[in-house]
Protein backbone atom coordinates (compact mmCIF):
# COMPACT_ATOMS: atom_id res chain seq x y z
CA UNK A 1 0.00 0.00 0.00
CA UNK A 2 2.79 2.37 0.80
CA UNK A 3 4.21 1.77 -2.62
CA UNK A 4 1.07 2.75 -4.31
CA UNK A 5 0.41 6.18 -3.02
CA UNK A 6 4.06 7.03 -3.13
CA UNK A 7 4.06 6.06 -6.75
CA UNK A 8 1.08 8.29 -7.26
CA UNK A 9 2.70 11.13 -5.45
CA UNK A 10 5.75 10.72 -7.56
CA UNK A 11 3.82 10.92 -10.70
CA UNK A 12 2.07 13.99 -9.47
CA UNK A 13 5.17 15.69 -8.46
CA UNK A 14 7.00 14.80 -11.60
CA UNK A 15 4.19 16.14 -13.65
CA UNK A 16 4.06 19.38 -11.74
CA UNK A 17 7.72 19.86 -11.98
CA UNK A 18 7.72 19.16 -15.64
CA UNK A 19 5.08 21.74 -16.18
CA UNK A 20 6.93 24.26 -14.19
CA UNK A 21 10.13 23.54 -15.96
CA UNK A 22 8.55 23.88 -19.32
CA UNK A 23 6.83 27.06 -18.38
CA UNK A 24 9.99 28.44 -17.00
CA UNK A 25 12.01 27.57 -20.01
CA UNK A 26 9.60 28.99 -22.39
CA UNK A 27 8.54 32.08 -20.62
CA UNK A 28 11.58 32.95 -18.74
CA UNK A 29 13.60 34.68 -21.39
CA UNK A 30 10.57 36.48 -22.62
CA UNK A 31 9.83 37.75 -19.28
CA UNK A 32 13.32 38.72 -18.71
CA UNK A 33 13.64 40.56 -21.96
CA UNK A 34 10.50 42.50 -21.27
CA UNK A 35 12.45 44.47 -18.82
CA UNK A 36 13.03 47.84 -20.32
CA UNK A 37 16.19 49.83 -19.94
CA UNK A 38 16.57 53.53 -20.04
CA UNK A 39 14.17 54.36 -17.43
CA UNK A 40 15.72 54.94 -14.18
CA UNK A 41 14.08 52.84 -11.63
CA UNK A 42 13.52 53.48 -8.11
CA UNK A 43 14.42 50.90 -5.72
CA UNK A 44 12.69 47.62 -6.32
CA UNK A 45 10.48 48.12 -3.30
CA UNK A 46 8.73 50.78 -5.21
CA UNK A 47 5.25 49.51 -5.67
CA UNK A 48 3.69 50.83 -8.77
CA UNK A 49 4.27 49.05 -11.94
CA UNK A 50 1.62 47.94 -14.04
CA UNK A 51 2.73 50.13 -16.77
CA UNK A 52 2.87 48.28 -19.77
CA UNK A 53 6.18 48.47 -21.37
CA UNK A 54 5.55 45.36 -23.25
CA UNK A 55 5.29 47.14 -26.42
CA UNK A 56 8.41 49.15 -26.25
CA UNK A 57 10.77 46.52 -27.16
CA UNK A 58 12.40 44.84 -29.94
CA UNK A 59 15.24 47.10 -30.65
CA UNK A 60 16.71 43.86 -31.74
CA UNK A 61 19.97 45.21 -33.16
CA UNK A 62 21.61 42.12 -34.39
CA UNK A 63 20.27 39.72 -36.87
CA UNK A 64 21.52 36.52 -35.44
CA UNK A 65 19.56 35.20 -32.73
CA UNK A 66 21.53 35.41 -29.57
CA UNK A 67 20.58 35.44 -26.13
CA UNK A 68 21.84 38.85 -25.51
CA UNK A 69 18.68 40.68 -25.17
CA UNK A 70 17.79 43.96 -23.87
CA UNK A 71 16.14 43.64 -20.62
CA UNK A 72 13.02 45.51 -20.14
CA UNK A 73 10.85 45.61 -17.27
CA UNK A 74 9.21 42.28 -17.37
CA UNK A 75 6.21 43.62 -15.68
CA UNK A 76 3.64 41.27 -14.41
CA UNK A 77 4.85 38.17 -16.10
CA UNK A 78 8.24 38.54 -14.62
CA UNK A 79 6.76 39.10 -11.26
CA UNK A 80 4.50 36.14 -11.60
CA UNK A 81 7.23 33.88 -12.73
CA UNK A 82 9.45 35.15 -10.03
CA UNK A 83 6.97 34.59 -7.29
CA UNK A 84 5.97 31.21 -8.59
CA UNK A 85 9.50 29.96 -8.86
CA UNK A 86 10.51 31.65 -5.61
CA UNK A 87 7.72 29.79 -3.95
CA UNK A 88 8.91 26.63 -5.59
CA UNK A 89 12.42 27.09 -4.42
CA UNK A 90 11.49 28.03 -0.90
CA UNK A 91 8.77 25.47 -0.69
CA UNK A 92 10.97 22.64 -1.73
CA UNK A 93 13.67 23.96 0.49
CA UNK A 94 11.21 23.84 3.37
CA UNK A 95 10.28 20.35 2.30
CA UNK A 96 13.90 19.36 2.55
CA UNK A 97 14.01 20.75 6.05
CA UNK A 98 10.95 18.93 7.13
CA UNK A 99 11.47 15.64 5.41
CA UNK A 100 13.05 12.74 7.20
CA UNK A 101 13.55 10.44 4.26
CA UNK A 102 16.86 10.94 2.52
CA UNK A 103 15.54 10.00 -0.89
CA UNK A 104 12.73 12.48 -0.64
CA UNK A 105 15.20 15.04 0.43
CA UNK A 106 17.19 14.34 -2.71
CA UNK A 107 14.11 14.72 -4.87
CA UNK A 108 13.17 17.97 -3.22
CA UNK A 109 16.70 19.13 -3.75
CA UNK A 110 16.27 18.43 -7.41
CA UNK A 111 13.20 20.62 -7.44
CA UNK A 112 15.08 23.34 -5.62
CA UNK A 113 17.94 23.19 -8.02
CA UNK A 114 15.59 23.38 -10.94
CA UNK A 115 13.84 26.35 -9.46
CA UNK A 116 17.13 28.09 -8.89
CA UNK A 117 18.03 27.38 -12.52
CA UNK A 118 14.80 29.04 -13.64
CA UNK A 119 15.64 32.02 -11.48
CA UNK A 120 18.95 32.14 -13.16
CA UNK A 121 17.12 32.34 -16.46
CA UNK A 122 15.00 35.12 -15.06
CA UNK A 123 18.18 36.90 -14.16
CA UNK A 124 19.37 36.68 -17.79
CA UNK A 125 22.13 34.25 -16.79
CA UNK A 126 21.13 31.69 -19.36
CA UNK A 127 24.42 29.94 -19.57
CA UNK A 128 24.72 29.58 -15.84
CA UNK A 129 21.20 28.37 -15.63
CA UNK A 130 21.91 25.69 -18.10
CA UNK A 131 25.16 24.81 -16.37
CA UNK A 132 23.21 24.61 -13.15
CA UNK A 133 20.80 22.19 -14.62
CA UNK A 134 23.41 20.05 -16.27
CA UNK A 135 26.11 19.99 -13.62
CA UNK A 136 24.25 20.50 -10.46
CA UNK A 137 20.95 18.89 -10.99
CA UNK A 138 22.19 16.34 -13.41
CA UNK A 139 25.59 15.61 -11.96
CA UNK A 140 25.93 16.45 -8.36
CA UNK A 141 22.50 15.40 -7.42
CA UNK A 142 22.94 12.06 -9.15
CA UNK A 143 26.16 11.70 -7.25
CA UNK A 144 24.36 12.33 -4.01
CA UNK A 145 21.78 9.78 -4.90
CA UNK A 146 24.55 7.34 -5.64
CA UNK A 147 25.90 8.10 -2.23
CA UNK A 148 22.51 7.48 -0.69
CA UNK A 149 22.31 4.21 -2.51
CA UNK A 150 25.74 3.06 -1.40
CA UNK A 151 25.40 4.08 2.24
CA UNK A 152 21.92 3.28 3.20
CA UNK A 153 20.95 0.11 4.84
CA UNK A 154 17.33 0.64 4.18
CA UNK A 155 15.53 3.45 2.44
CA UNK A 156 12.95 3.70 5.11
CA UNK A 157 15.37 4.37 7.89
CA UNK A 158 14.51 7.51 9.78
CA UNK A 159 16.98 9.34 11.92
CA UNK A 160 15.14 11.33 14.45
CA UNK A 161 16.45 14.52 15.87
CA UNK A 162 15.63 15.59 19.39
CA UNK A 163 13.13 18.34 19.71
CA UNK A 164 15.49 20.46 21.73
CA UNK A 165 18.01 20.42 18.95
CA UNK A 166 15.33 21.37 16.43
CA UNK A 167 14.30 24.30 18.49
CA UNK A 168 17.86 25.42 19.04
CA UNK A 169 18.60 25.14 15.36
CA UNK A 170 15.37 26.92 14.53
CA UNK A 171 16.21 29.77 16.86
CA UNK A 172 19.71 30.20 15.59
CA UNK A 173 18.62 30.03 11.98
CA UNK A 174 15.82 32.45 12.62
CA UNK A 175 18.20 34.87 14.21
CA UNK A 176 20.59 34.52 11.33
CA UNK A 177 17.78 34.93 8.87
CA UNK A 178 16.52 38.02 10.57
CA UNK A 179 19.98 39.49 10.70
CA UNK A 180 20.72 38.84 7.10
CA UNK A 181 17.32 39.97 5.94
CA UNK A 182 17.76 43.15 7.86
CA UNK A 183 20.89 43.78 5.92
CA UNK A 184 19.46 42.68 2.65
CA UNK A 185 16.24 44.57 2.89
CA UNK A 186 17.54 47.58 4.63
CA UNK A 187 20.68 48.14 2.67
CA UNK A 188 20.79 50.67 -0.07
CA UNK A 189 22.06 48.55 -2.85
CA UNK A 190 23.59 50.58 -5.66
CA UNK A 191 21.38 49.23 -8.32
CA UNK A 192 21.66 50.36 -11.81
CA UNK A 193 18.60 49.43 -13.72
CA UNK A 194 19.55 50.57 -17.13
CA UNK A 195 18.71 48.01 -19.66
CA UNK A 196 21.29 45.48 -19.74
CA UNK A 197 21.80 42.84 -22.26
CA UNK A 198 22.10 39.36 -21.31
CA UNK A 199 25.62 38.24 -21.64
CA UNK A 200 26.31 35.86 -24.43
CA UNK A 201 28.24 32.71 -24.12
CA UNK A 202 30.97 34.16 -26.26
CA UNK A 203 31.40 36.97 -23.79
CA UNK A 204 31.44 34.47 -21.02
CA UNK A 205 34.07 32.41 -22.69
CA UNK A 206 36.14 35.47 -23.46
CA UNK A 207 36.00 36.61 -19.83
CA UNK A 208 36.93 33.17 -18.63
CA UNK A 209 40.00 33.04 -20.82
CA UNK A 210 41.21 36.52 -20.14
CA UNK A 211 40.19 38.06 -16.88
CA UNK A 212 39.52 34.87 -15.01
CA UNK A 213 42.22 32.70 -16.45
CA UNK A 214 44.04 31.99 -13.24
CA UNK A 215 40.97 30.90 -11.33
CA UNK A 216 40.05 28.81 -14.37
CA UNK A 217 43.35 27.01 -14.29
CA UNK A 218 43.17 26.70 -10.58
CA UNK A 219 39.76 25.19 -10.84
CA UNK A 220 41.11 22.71 -13.33
CA UNK A 221 43.88 21.67 -11.01
CA UNK A 222 41.38 21.49 -8.23
CA UNK A 223 39.19 19.21 -10.25
CA UNK A 224 42.11 16.99 -10.90
CA UNK A 225 43.05 16.89 -7.27
CA UNK A 226 39.54 16.23 -6.26
CA UNK A 227 39.26 13.41 -8.67
CA UNK A 228 42.38 11.81 -7.37
CA UNK A 229 41.35 12.46 -3.80
CA UNK A 230 37.94 11.06 -4.25
CA UNK A 231 39.28 8.03 -5.94
CA UNK A 232 41.77 7.58 -3.13
CA UNK A 233 39.23 8.03 -0.44
CA UNK A 234 36.73 5.72 -1.92
CA UNK A 235 39.07 2.99 -2.93
CA UNK A 236 38.49 -0.53 -1.73
CA UNK A 237 41.08 -1.76 0.81
Amino acid at each position, binding site marked *: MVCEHTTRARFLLAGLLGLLAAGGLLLGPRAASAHETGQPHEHAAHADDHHDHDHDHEHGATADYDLRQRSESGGGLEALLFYVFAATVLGSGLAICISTN*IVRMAVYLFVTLSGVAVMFFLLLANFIGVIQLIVYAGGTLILLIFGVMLTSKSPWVRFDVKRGELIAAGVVCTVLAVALLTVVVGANWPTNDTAVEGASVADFGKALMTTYLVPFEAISVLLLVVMIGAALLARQE
Partner: protein
Amino acid sequence: MFDIGLTHYLVVATLLFVMGVFVMVTKRNAIGILIGVEMVLNGASLNLIAFNRYTTGGLPRVDGQVGSLFVIVLAAAEAALAVAICMNFYKNLNTVDVDRGDELAG
Protein backbone atom coordinates in the same frame (compact mmCIF):
# COMPACT_ATOMS: atom_id res chain seq x y z
CA MET B 1 5.73 44.35 -5.68
CA PHE B 2 5.50 43.70 -9.20
CA ASP B 3 8.66 45.42 -9.89
CA ILE B 4 11.07 42.69 -9.08
CA GLY B 5 14.25 44.16 -7.91
CA LEU B 6 17.51 43.05 -6.42
CA THR B 7 16.06 42.76 -2.99
CA HIS B 8 13.57 40.10 -3.99
CA TYR B 9 16.22 37.84 -5.34
CA LEU B 10 18.42 38.52 -2.32
CA VAL B 11 15.62 37.61 0.01
CA VAL B 12 15.11 34.35 -1.74
CA ALA B 13 18.78 33.63 -1.78
CA THR B 14 19.03 34.45 1.93
CA LEU B 15 16.13 32.24 2.83
CA LEU B 16 17.53 29.44 0.77
CA PHE B 17 20.87 29.89 2.51
CA VAL B 18 19.33 29.82 5.96
CA MET B 19 17.30 26.78 5.13
CA GLY B 20 20.40 25.11 3.92
CA VAL B 21 22.06 25.85 7.27
CA PHE B 22 19.03 24.48 9.06
CA VAL B 23 19.26 21.31 7.06
CA MET B 24 22.97 21.01 7.82
CA VAL B 25 22.35 21.34 11.52
CA THR B 26 19.33 19.19 11.74
CA LYS B 27 19.89 16.15 9.58
CA ARG B 28 21.64 13.15 11.02
CA ASN B 29 22.22 11.48 7.73
CA ALA B 30 25.59 12.39 6.24
CA ILE B 31 24.05 12.76 2.82
CA GLY B 32 21.44 15.03 4.38
CA ILE B 33 24.25 17.32 5.45
CA LEU B 34 25.57 17.30 1.95
CA ILE B 35 22.19 18.30 0.69
CA GLY B 36 22.25 21.18 3.07
CA VAL B 37 25.65 22.21 1.73
CA GLU B 38 24.24 22.18 -1.80
CA MET B 39 21.41 24.41 -0.70
CA VAL B 40 23.83 26.87 0.86
CA LEU B 41 25.95 26.97 -2.23
CA ASN B 42 22.91 27.47 -4.36
CA GLY B 43 21.86 30.38 -2.29
CA ALA B 44 25.29 31.90 -2.66
CA SER B 45 25.37 31.51 -6.40
CA LEU B 46 21.87 32.92 -6.68
CA ASN B 47 23.15 35.87 -4.76
CA LEU B 48 26.03 36.31 -7.12
CA ILE B 49 23.85 36.11 -10.20
CA ALA B 50 21.38 38.57 -8.72
CA PHE B 51 24.09 41.06 -8.06
CA ASN B 52 25.46 40.45 -11.50
CA ARG B 53 22.10 41.30 -13.06
CA TYR B 54 21.31 44.39 -11.06
CA THR B 55 24.53 46.22 -10.49
CA THR B 56 26.53 45.99 -13.63
CA GLY B 57 25.26 49.11 -15.36
CA GLY B 58 25.69 49.53 -19.09
CA LEU B 59 28.09 46.99 -20.34
CA PRO B 60 27.31 43.35 -20.06
CA ARG B 61 29.38 41.87 -17.36
CA VAL B 62 29.81 38.33 -16.45
CA ASP B 63 31.64 38.67 -13.13
CA GLY B 64 28.87 37.28 -11.09
CA GLN B 65 28.22 34.57 -13.52
CA VAL B 66 31.83 33.50 -13.57
CA GLY B 67 31.70 33.44 -9.82
CA SER B 68 28.61 31.38 -9.94
CA LEU B 69 30.27 29.06 -12.39
CA PHE B 70 33.15 28.55 -10.06
CA VAL B 71 30.77 27.94 -7.23
CA ILE B 72 29.05 25.27 -9.22
CA VAL B 73 32.32 23.63 -10.14
CA LEU B 74 33.53 23.70 -6.63
CA ALA B 75 30.27 22.39 -5.39
CA ALA B 76 30.49 19.48 -7.72
CA ALA B 77 34.05 18.72 -6.72
CA GLU B 78 33.28 19.03 -3.10
CA ALA B 79 30.23 16.84 -3.45
CA ALA B 80 32.32 14.17 -5.00
CA LEU B 81 34.82 14.25 -2.18
CA ALA B 82 32.12 14.45 0.37
CA VAL B 83 30.42 11.41 -0.99
CA ALA B 84 33.73 9.60 -0.88
CA ILE B 85 34.10 10.62 2.73
CA CYS B 86 30.57 9.50 3.45
CA MET B 87 31.34 6.15 1.95
CA ASN B 88 34.45 5.88 4.08
CA PHE B 89 32.44 6.88 7.09
CA TYR B 90 29.90 4.21 6.24
CA LYS B 91 32.65 1.69 5.78
CA ASN B 92 34.24 2.46 9.17
CA LEU B 93 31.22 2.89 11.33
CA ASN B 94 28.76 0.83 9.40
CA THR B 95 26.24 3.56 9.65
CA VAL B 96 25.64 6.88 8.05
CA ASP B 97 24.44 8.52 11.21
CA VAL B 98 26.84 11.38 11.84
CA ASP B 99 25.97 11.39 15.54
CA ARG B 100 27.74 8.08 15.86
CA GLY B 101 30.89 9.59 14.61
CA ASP B 102 31.61 11.79 17.55
CA GLU B 103 35.01 10.44 18.53
CA LEU B 104 38.27 11.21 16.89
CA ALA B 105 39.92 7.92 17.59
CA GLY B 106 38.81 4.65 16.07
